[in-house]
């Protein structure tokens, strides 16, 4: 039996300017907006409403792809060159927004996109878009496993760490490195999504 599952990294001088009590893991003010988006997506699917499905898929997908590319290829590399306190300060303000925003955009895009593809007959075996959509499922599947299994746990752990009276700079730096690498991989994979979706839209 193992004695401990915890990692006891040394505390370093990494106290961010934001006091621990100011760091919110989930911004509660954003929850009603998330709820409204989820209800809108459910209504769109239930009604098989073409405009609403297209709106959810295009708007959600555009924001998801653009944010992933921007964070993975621009913000991430900048972040990796900042000092640990600066990273912590940035993270305290940036991550809570991402914790709500990204799952909402992903849910909106995928749920509406699947229904839209079904409605337009793109999932029929003889349709020229069918194979492209299966490839897009695979790309999204890989991104989902990376995002849900690695990126999101790291983001939430950083935020929880920053709520402590003495945040551990080593833990924050370790997990932020994970954030930088995984968001870079996801950003690169979004290029594949752009290629697939523009193919599907023009076949």
């Amino acid at each position, binding site marked *: 039996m193992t004695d*401990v599952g*915890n990692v006891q990294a040394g505390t370093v001088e990494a106290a961010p300017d934001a006091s621990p009590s100011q760091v919110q893991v989930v911004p509660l003010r954003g929850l009603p907006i998330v709820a409204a988006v989820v209800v809108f997506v459910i209504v769109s699917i239930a009604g098989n409403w073409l405009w609403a499905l297209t709106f959810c898929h295009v708007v959600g997908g555009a924001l998801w792809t653009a944010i992933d590319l921007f964070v993975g290829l621009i913000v991430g590399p900048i972040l990796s060159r900042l000092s640990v306190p600066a990273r912590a300060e940035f993270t305290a303000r940036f991550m809570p927004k991402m914790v709500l925003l990204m*799952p909402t955009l992903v849910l909106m895009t995928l749920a509406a996109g699947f229904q839209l593809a079904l409605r337009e007959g793109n999932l029929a075996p003889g349709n020229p878009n069918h194979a492209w959509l299966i490839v897009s*499922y695979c790309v999204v599947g890989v991104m989902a496993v990376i995002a849900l299994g690695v990126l999101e*746990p790291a983001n939430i*752990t950083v935020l929880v760490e920053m709520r402590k009276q003495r945040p551990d700079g080593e833990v924050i730096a370790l997990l932020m490195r994970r954030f930088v690498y995984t968001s870079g991989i996801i950003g690169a994979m979004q290029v594949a999504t752009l290629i697939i979706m523009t193919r599907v839209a023009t076949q």
Partner: protein
Amino acid sequence: MRRPYPIAQLTVCSLALVVIGGILMASYVPRQPPLTAPTALTAVSAALALTSVFLLSRLKQFAWPRFFLAFRWALLAYVISAGMIGFAFVRDHTRGAPLALVAVMLVIFALDVPVVIAFTVARYSSPPHSAS
């Protein structure tokens, strides 16, 4: 210090298998999907998830209050997510054995993600008795 159990790795593998199974099922919509491969993937995924829960239960000096706090909220979020995916399959007339298999996959998905989030959060937290 001894190397901790690979709980996060096992849970992420379980998640990956259930995602592959979901892709296989979704790739057949609106037709009836063959269930052999998705069922095998789901069974292995469930076994990995159970193994990680078993290993988790054997941890000593673990930040359990923090684990359960993170687990509860993440579970709420991913039950909603899984519910929406399930709704999409029901809306698309998935019925019978395929629907039952999708439901099992969604249960595993809705448990795997909170486990890996809560485990990661608790792993980097001090044990309760030494927190202050």
